[in-house]
């Protein structure tokens, strides 16, 4: 008896449901299908746009932030956030106008209480002149997205102990904290794919040796290993060196898990007909690995890479928070939280935790986006 494609056998698990609109088969590339599925996932799309926004803020940090990350003001240590009720739209006469702030006076030196000095108003200006910088590391400019006139200073998210603007430092810090994820994942994924591909394809002693190394790295508690590695580089280094070292260390840990999974996939793929056919045609092994096997692992790799970006972001945060990562006066989301280890700072000037909100948002967005990508790449999900 002929069995047929539209089977509704074994209905109780719901998986044998009629596949339905079989007529609507249009030839699409796997990437188009992936994108179509992803587009329908509204939460994942929201996460993607949030990421675009965060990364754009970091790239244009010097234009968007009113001040430089290291612009101190000793007289305005722990200035409270203007966003908490210190931006006015109605003046003393009750007239509505453009938003403005008052200057601040240090009312209590010990508790760092600031009162508003109502003698002068400082309107918040769009495209205000400020310190010099190079837009996109290239075009010299002095215009910032917004600002107030001297001698007032704008602290939308408040100021830190040196009177630096936390918003500006968050934007600059995003350059480090967010790029660590992208660069780190690029390095570790390349290493992981190469090592996993080689181990899986060549097998034998090569495979054995590489896999023991992978197991060793995975067997260690990562933060301990990261710290030991970090210490082996010594303490006195420029910020660029430190940045590179952090990425290198995190990538050194990160490649192992990718390599292991890629090896497993290669082992199964290399038995498939098209690889055997390529062998029969006399292509070299390396060519087969690079040209035929690794591209087949790509959708998996992209999903894994996306989902492991948070590891790098959080790794940088942890190192900088523990004081062995990015050093002052350079800003990173991790070292900005260091001040909060002081209980008095934490309780009295809680706005210094704001960078934590940004870490959370970035990590959350990567997780949600990666999850959506995984669902979209999974051929079993219909929608």
């Amino acid at each position, binding site marked *: 008896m002929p069995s047929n494609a539209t089977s509704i056998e074994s209905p109780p*698990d719901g998986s044998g449901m009629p596949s339905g609109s079989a007529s609507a088969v249009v030839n699409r590339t796997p990437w188009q299908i992936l994108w179509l599925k992803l587009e329908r996932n509204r939460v994942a799309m929201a996460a993607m746009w949030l990421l675009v926004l965060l990364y754009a803020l970091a790239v244009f940090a010097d234009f968007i932030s009113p001040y430089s990350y290291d612009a101190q003001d000793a007289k305005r240590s722990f200035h409270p956030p203007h966003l908490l009720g210190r931006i006015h739209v109605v003046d003393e006469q009750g007239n509505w106008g453009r938003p403005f702030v008052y200057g601040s006076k240090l009312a209590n030196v010990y508790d760092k209480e600031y009162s508003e000095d109502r003698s002068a108003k400082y309107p918040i200006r769009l495209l205000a002149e400020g310190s010099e910088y190079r837009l996109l590391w290239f075009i010299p400019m002095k215009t910032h997205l917004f600002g107030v006139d001297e001698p007032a200073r704008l602290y939308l998210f408040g100021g830190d102990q040196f009177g630096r603007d936390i918003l500006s430092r968050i934007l600059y810090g995003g350059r480090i904290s967010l790029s660590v994820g992208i660069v780190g994942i690029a390095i570790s994924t390349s290493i992981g794919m190469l090592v996993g591909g080689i181990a899986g394809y060549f097998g034998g002693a090569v495979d054995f040796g590489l896999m023991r190394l992978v197991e060793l790295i995975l067997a260690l508690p990562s933060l*301990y290993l990261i710290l030991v590695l970090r210490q082996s580089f010594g303490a006195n280094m420029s910020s660029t060196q430190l940045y590179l070292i952090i990425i290198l260390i995190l990538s050194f840990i990160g490649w192992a898990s990718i390599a292991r999974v890629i090896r497993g996939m290669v082992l199964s793929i290399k038995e498939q007909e098209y690889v055997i056919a390529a062998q029969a045609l006399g292509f070299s092994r390396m060519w087969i690995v690079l040209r035929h096997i690794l591209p087949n692992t790509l959708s998996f790799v992209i999903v894994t890479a996306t989902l492991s970006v948070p590891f790098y972001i*959080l790794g940088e945060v942890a190192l900088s928070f523990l004081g062995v990562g990015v050093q002052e006066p350079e800003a990173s989301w991790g070292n900005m939280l260091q001040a*909060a280890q002081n*209980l008095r700072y934490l309780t009295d000037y809680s706005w210094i*935790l704001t960078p934590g909100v940004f870490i959370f948002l970035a990590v*959350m967005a990567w997780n949600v986006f990666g999850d959506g990508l995984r669902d979209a790449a999974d051929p079993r999900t219909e929608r």
Partner: protein
Amino acid sequence: MKTFLLRRFLAIVPLILAVTFITQVLLIASPGDYFSTLSESPSMTPERLEFLRAKYHLDTENVFIRYWYWLSGVLTGDFGYSFKYQTSVWSLIGDRILNTLLLAVGALLISWGLAIPLGILSAVKKDSIVDRLAGGLSFVGLSIPSVFFSLLMVLFAAKTGLFPVGGLHDQVYWDFMTPWQKFVDVIWHLFLPATVLGTIGMAQYMRQMRAEMIETLSQDYIRTAKAKGLSLRTVLFRHALGNAINPLITLFGFSFAYLLSGAFITEFVFAWPGMGRLTVDALIIKDEPLVMASIVMVTVMLVAGNLLADILLAAVDPRIRLE
């Protein structure tokens, strides 16, 4: 079972040798040693410095010689003396290990205790509001950085006064407490750091539990169980749970490793006197014997966690034999 345990114990040895050797290499690779910082003190003469370095075998850059000195000590049961504290590293590490274990177990209880019921509930009520809510919360739990979460909890404790802001126990009244009061006091101090540490794991295990449970509930044998007229509760707990939980038991082993690493930050923020803080400090001042002993202990705890997971797995799944 016996041979299995024996084999596993023997497998730990090369792992620890590899880990400690790598640590030794990295320690030598880093510039300076413990006595470099002391050399700036005026009371320290170059001769005395020379003497100290020779005494602790820091006068050679040869990894193998240095490592052999350490290893030969360990083989006779001597892990050495901490440079900084001038006492045997065991006296320093013993309490710290217990404290870290306490924190890890607390976090484990919180994360698994919540993850399993929530995961089952989400799977059974798949696509309901409860499921969606739990799913959203799990993303929050998964994404909240432990640095940030710990600081938020300290802030919460400081503002409300409901919990202590840090430490293992009360500093002032500890000596006057009855054993029961001491126990309650430690639990009270443990609650916030364990919650922070447990949350990230919880989110992950909950999602995993949900996925495994949904997968299991679609299996043929669940249909068979229903066809016998068994109640939903029996089907869920006798037939589904045992099967669904297998992959999580492997995770359980890894979760221990994760907790040891994750505990680092939490211990730091909550001033919890555990291994993490001790190791960071030892690393920064290059207190070599202390660093080496810490690494050994952490590795052992990790392997023990994985071993425990293997044994549990064999206990739950009759298809797995430990040989």
